[in-house]
């Protein structure tokens, strides 16, 4: 069981959270100019690394806020939680 630290509520069990996937994916600023391939990359492609991963979590059964977590996808070890507005371009 992962012990995840919500920046507002502190450490809680994994079951209180829901997972939001890779962090830092920004909606294209100028959607009209995108090619189909660029849209496909934005919508569907993910970096899916083996190792350190920045990801989104939601404290669904607590304060219901989103935040970022740095976690290793092999050891599952959590490095830190962070506030999304504190890491521009790294949502």
């Amino acid at each position, binding site marked *: 069981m992962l012990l995840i630290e919500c920046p507002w509520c502190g450490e809680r069990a994994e079951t209180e959270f829901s997972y939001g996937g890779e962090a830092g994916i920004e909606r294209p600023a100028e959607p009209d100019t995108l090619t189909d391939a660029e849209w496909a990359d934005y*919508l569907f492609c993910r970096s899916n690394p083996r190792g350190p991963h920045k990801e989104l979590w939601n404290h669904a059964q607590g304060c219901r806020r989103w935040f970022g977590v740095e976690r290793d996808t092999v050891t599952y070890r959590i490095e830190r939680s962070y506030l999304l507005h504190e890491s521009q371009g790294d949502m």
Partner: protein
Amino acid sequence: MKRYSALGLLRNALSHNRNWPEAWRSAEPKKHYDAIIVGGGGHGLATAYYLAKVHGMRNVAVLEKGWIGGGNTGRNTTIVRSNYLWTEASLLYEKSIQLWEGLSQDLNYNVMFSQRGVYNIGHSLQDMRDIERRVNANRLVGIDAEVVDAAQIKKAIPHINTSATARYPILGASLQRRAGVARHDAVAWGFARAADALGVDIIEQCEVTGIDVEGGKVVGVQSSRGRIGADKIGVVVAGNASVVAAMAGLRLPIESHPLQAFVSEPLKPVLDTVVMSGAVHGYISQSDKGELVIGAGIDAYNGYGQRGSFPTIEHTMQAIIELFPIFSRVRMLRLWGGIVDVCPDACPILSKTPIDGLFLNCGWGTGGFKATPGSGWVFAHTIANDEPHELNAPFSLERFTSGALIDEHGAAAVAH
């Protein structure tokens, strides 16, 4: 290859089973191959086998970083069926069932394919509508499928809880009688042995660490056993698809997740078919050794650790006990995890790539074991001809750009 036979069994018994030949050679890598298959799971081995058998390509190697069948092939719960919703998907899986039906004979290896039927249970009116729609879709393309009601289920599976007061009452199910289970290890070993007999080099403990591309065309791989040249490369590495594709600079619409499975202590025969429920989310069958074989859903987060978390274990057990209260005191013997490669539309990628000579077979997620022979069949065709077979043409990487997704999420109840 020494053929296995009843007589051979007897002869080897008389010599105390000391003289069995090895099932496949441990080959040393050559300098160059016409085709390299990266990944020695069932899909990779089946691809190599059909390349040699159907397309006459025998200068082929399978490179496996661990041991044959040590990935998802040897970790899965072995459910085989073809009752998917969309025509593209059901025809692909149906091709596979047709190959399963003759596979033990074809490979001269008993893969213990057992067509004991699969029930996909419905617990609500909407479940039953979806089941009827899927059964009709299956019958329209010639796949055996029927809708059964709760009384029929109870008659076939006496221990299942069909009480109307259950928290998730059972209203009915789809039943595919030709579906069933097979022995996963035997599938890997059988394909390895048969491919080897046709000249394919099976090279274990050989991790691919780089893909060499020159002028937009593959020329070979870097590996833990040195550089190996190749005209064509098929990447069939399941949960590691993104990692290996990145070696050629490709980004994939795939995320890797842990998926767990469990077996119980062995019991006397108690369940002679396969039961799956998407709503309570669990599935169960009984192996020939008597163990209950149990599985459920993925862990939500990305993971490569070949293990999952306790909440998922608890959830799985809740689902099984909801369906079968009789199993509440059965003890679990073992549990493990595999890493599954999940696509946004829950369908595989069997495709050429923007790089000449590089082919991808991945994205099977939680449900690729059933497709092992069919996947190898169409992927070998794709590699040999540089063109997809008509059955896998819809499963291109391109579909994510064109938008022609094949949305099997939810459509086929649990995705195994």
